[in-house]
């Protein structure tokens, strides 16, 4: 084995790390460790000068391993790997020690934090000694794209890709495409008709020569990897399709308010959800169940949102929709009393604050409630009350317990992830966060991609969002997909498992544990064989192998055991 020459770089991250970790001491101490040629600390390692520092050192000191002790590898591992490539070093000869998210941001004792940082760096140094050069694998990209879900997001992405001349398979569970936008009368803040807006797009999709639409269809399991996926569309007739990328646009499910006792949904006649009101507007008449015109109309915001008993997140569109309804009701029923019972008005987005201001001038009363601890209570009115229902609430801005008369109550229900979200997540191999929305690769820097290469998430399946945000995300995903199709091939990780045939005894334990059927048995040689294309590198086979014949590349036993030693040895030294 060649002589190990490691360069260690400790990042200050401005004061993010340096405030809690004595970076200079860390750098000084680890420089003494065997194999370390040079150790430095620098303000921002990820900056261009920081990367240059590494590149220059690699050349000057003939380094063949690099450890950067900075933020989470989930953020900058690829940045530094690229720097290594630029310096002519194989990118896998690199390891990161996470001393920001796992040290400086979470600890309060500087001495202990510094000590912990040193051990983490020592672990990384030990690990990197065992790193080996790995070649990136190139895969061809199938130019077809699968889009799951035919709402505004799926439709937008489909048209972008198809208009660029690439094949799209659009799979929709319902019997028509258009999703919730097609069910909207008007949209905030400009009061365009949702139906009219999406209809031309629906027509284009249905008639596009490059788009194959599957209605009343589902997708079961997606096999393969980026560039080379395949799946079966489950419909009346099953169809096998092949595609290079997947865009998941499964959308939302409205929150069902019947579980909230205070709101009496389903128990009193004229308590309806926002979607039911939308339907009334589409049908052209807002009436009570008995056919008469309501005099007092209350819109209750945040139903099922921003409350830990239901969903903690904000559904983002209900405030503006409620204002939209206030406007629509004001024009439809000029004599009515309109009450917006809200928690906070969240009027972000272009034109939205202005919309709020204008609505507040339209004779609408705004009443604030505590959406976490103190929901309004709806009850049937008495005979002398001159209205059908009374809403009792503690109004936050005045601190008074008040009564609001109501003949119709509209519950502004929030958004949930689609009921099939979990199924789809498993089918395409992406993760969901606690509330069943899909997790993006990076919440800020890569909100369209997922951690699975070639799978993108758009629209409300990622988080509640409005139409422009959904369309933006859809178009962004389409651009990403088109870019990979354009390059036609892609580099993929090669951290797959590999079998040492000399050691393998052919027990086939690995075959049983592999979730991707990526391992087969070679009867002739009496050994297991890994199909590197199907293998996703989880390493389960490696830890199950009784003879140690299977190595998980870049997560080998030596690397991890050595890392453990490193973590602990430093501990004993101090």
């Amino acid at each position, binding site marked *: 084995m060649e002589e190990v020459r490691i360069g260690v770089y400790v990042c200050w991250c401005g004061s993010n790390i340096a405030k809690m970790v004595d970076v200079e001491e860390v750098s000084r101490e680890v420089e003494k460790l065997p194999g370390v040629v040079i150790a430095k600390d620098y303000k921002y390692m990820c900056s261009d000068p920081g990367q240059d520092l590494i590149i220059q050192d690699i050349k000057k000191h003939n380094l063949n391993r690099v450890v950067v002790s900075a933020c989470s590898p989930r953020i900058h591992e690829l940045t530094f790997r690229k720097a290594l490539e630029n310096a002519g070093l194989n990118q896998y000869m690199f390891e990161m020690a996470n001393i920001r998210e796992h040290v400086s941001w979470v600890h309060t004792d500087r001495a202990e934090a510094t000590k912990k940082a040193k051990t983490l760096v020592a672990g990384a140094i030990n690990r990197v000694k065992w790193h080996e050069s790995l070649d990136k694998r190139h895969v061809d990209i199938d130019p077809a794209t699968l889009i799951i879900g035919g709402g505004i997001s799926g439709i937008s992405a489909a048209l972008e890709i198809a208009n660029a001349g690439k094949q799209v398979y659009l799979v929709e569970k319902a019997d028509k495409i258009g999703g919730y936008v097609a069910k909207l009368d008007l949209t905030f803040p400009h009061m365009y008709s949702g139906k009219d807006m999406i209809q031309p797009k629906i027509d284009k999709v249905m008639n596009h020569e490059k788009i194959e639409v599957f209605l009343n269809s589902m997708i079961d399991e997606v096999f393969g990897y980026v560039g080379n996926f395949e799946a079966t569309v489950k419909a009346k007739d099953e169809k096998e399709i092949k595609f290079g990328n997947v865009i998941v646009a499964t959308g939302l499910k409205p929150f069902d308010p019947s579980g909230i006792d205070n709101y009496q949904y389903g128990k009193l006649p004229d308590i309806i959800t926002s979607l039911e009101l939308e339907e009334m507007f589409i049908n052209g008449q807002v009436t009570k169940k008995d056919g008469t015109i309501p005099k007092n109309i209350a819109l209750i915001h945040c139903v099922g949102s921003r409350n830990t008993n239901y969903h903690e997140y904000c559904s983002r569109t209900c405030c503006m929709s409620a204002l939209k309804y206030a406007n629509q009701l004001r024009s439809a029923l000029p004599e009515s*009393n309109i*009450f917006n019972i809200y928690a906070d008005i969240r009027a972000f987005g272009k034109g939205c604050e202005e919309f709020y201001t204008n609505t*507040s*001038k339209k*004779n*609408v*009363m*705004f*009443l604030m409630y505590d959406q976490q601890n103190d929901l309004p209570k709806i009850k049937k009115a008495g005979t002398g009350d001159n209205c059908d229902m009374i809403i009792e609430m503690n*109004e936050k*801005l*005045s*601190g*008074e*317990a*008040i*009564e*609001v*008369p109501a003949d119709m109550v509209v519950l502004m229900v929030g958004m949930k992830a689609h009921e099939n979200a979990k199924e789809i997540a498993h089918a395409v191999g992406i993760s969901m966060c606690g509330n069943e929305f899909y997790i993006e690769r990076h919440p800020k820097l890569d909100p369209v991609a997922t951690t699975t290469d070639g799978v993108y998430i758009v629209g409300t399946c990622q988080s509640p969002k409005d139409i422009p945000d959904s369309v933006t995300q859809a178009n962004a995903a389409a651009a990403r997909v088109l870019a990979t199709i354009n390059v036609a091939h892609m580099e993929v990780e090669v951290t797959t498992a590999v079998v040492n045939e000399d050691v393998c005894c052919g027990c086939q334990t690995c075959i049983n544990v592999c979730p991707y059927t990526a391992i087969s048995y070679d009867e002739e040689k009496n050994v297991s064989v890994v199909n590197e294309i199907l293998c996703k590198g989880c390493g389960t086979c490696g830890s199950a192998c009784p003879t140690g014949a299977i190595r998980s590349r870049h997560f080998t036993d030596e690397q991890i055991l050595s890392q453990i030693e490193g973590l602990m040895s430093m501990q004993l030294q101090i």
Partner: protein
Amino acid sequence: MNNRVDPNFKNELYKLGNKESWNDCFHCGNCTAVCSLTEENIVFPRKAIRYMQMGLKDKLAQSAEPWLCYYCGDCTETCPRDANPGEIMMALRRWQTVKYEWTGLAGLFYKSFTSLIVALILVAIAILTIGFMKDFNHEAIMHFGHSLEFWLIICVFSIILVPNIIRMFYFTVIKAKVKAPIGSYIAAFLSLFGHMFTQIKTFKCDKQTTRWLIHFLVVMGYLGLLVITVFLDWFGTENQSIINLGYITGGLVFVFTFILMISRLSKNRELNKYSHSTDWFFIIWLFLMGLTAFLVRLFIDIDLLTNNFWLYMIHLMVITQWGLLLVPFGKWTHFLYRSFAVSFINLKKASLS
């Protein structure tokens, strides 16, 4: 207690001078933060604005807080939403003036400019009729005028003003469930007159010294003139020092009300920017009263009144309109409500502490 929200309440306030911006306030609380007069537990203007937006009339009737505001305009200048809290407080005081007045005439005059004009004309005609009935006999009319003033004061006080103050007490103390110890009632009563004549609390507001001085001189001039004409018979007396004192008080009244009128016209400060009809009637009649009284005595002294008795007729009209309409049913009552509000609020503070 009725705690039902009332979306129509704001319409009532439009007629009392609040503009259509009732919903502009988004309750940042800057107004309360900059207010020099608000205290712990005695919070305004924000809270009163909230009651107004929600139409909680009972709550507003029970709040004496609007009367603690001297309209320095800081809140309005600070308001990020241009919701004009100062003017809303002013409109709320008008609403309370109407609310506490038991006959309903104040409500009529505050909301209908025409009705007040008609009432003023009717009073003028009545005075002319009385003059006609007395054959315009100078001595008889002046004698009548003097006793009219006296009886007006007695009647207006006992029939209108005292019951109104009792109503204010009923709403802001009894209905608001203020339970103060007896001792605090005595303290509140003792502090009443100090506030009534000095408006000492104004000094808590910044930039108010000149305004306070003008207001103080008008109050002193008005009260002096009242005493000198009604109880010391200014127009009949031979006592030179009383005559001179009368000139001074009358002069104070019309000179400084004239200044106040100019500033209302110039709209140079927040509190001058919006004037309700009742503000104008109040100040114009105060001015006319001071001026006509001054001129009547002057005409007596230079022996012109006999040939110009129309002047006294005008003066008599002005003071009758004043005493019969503008004092009991107009802005004059702020003199009482403001002073009593301080005492009632002291009771509230005592009950909370």
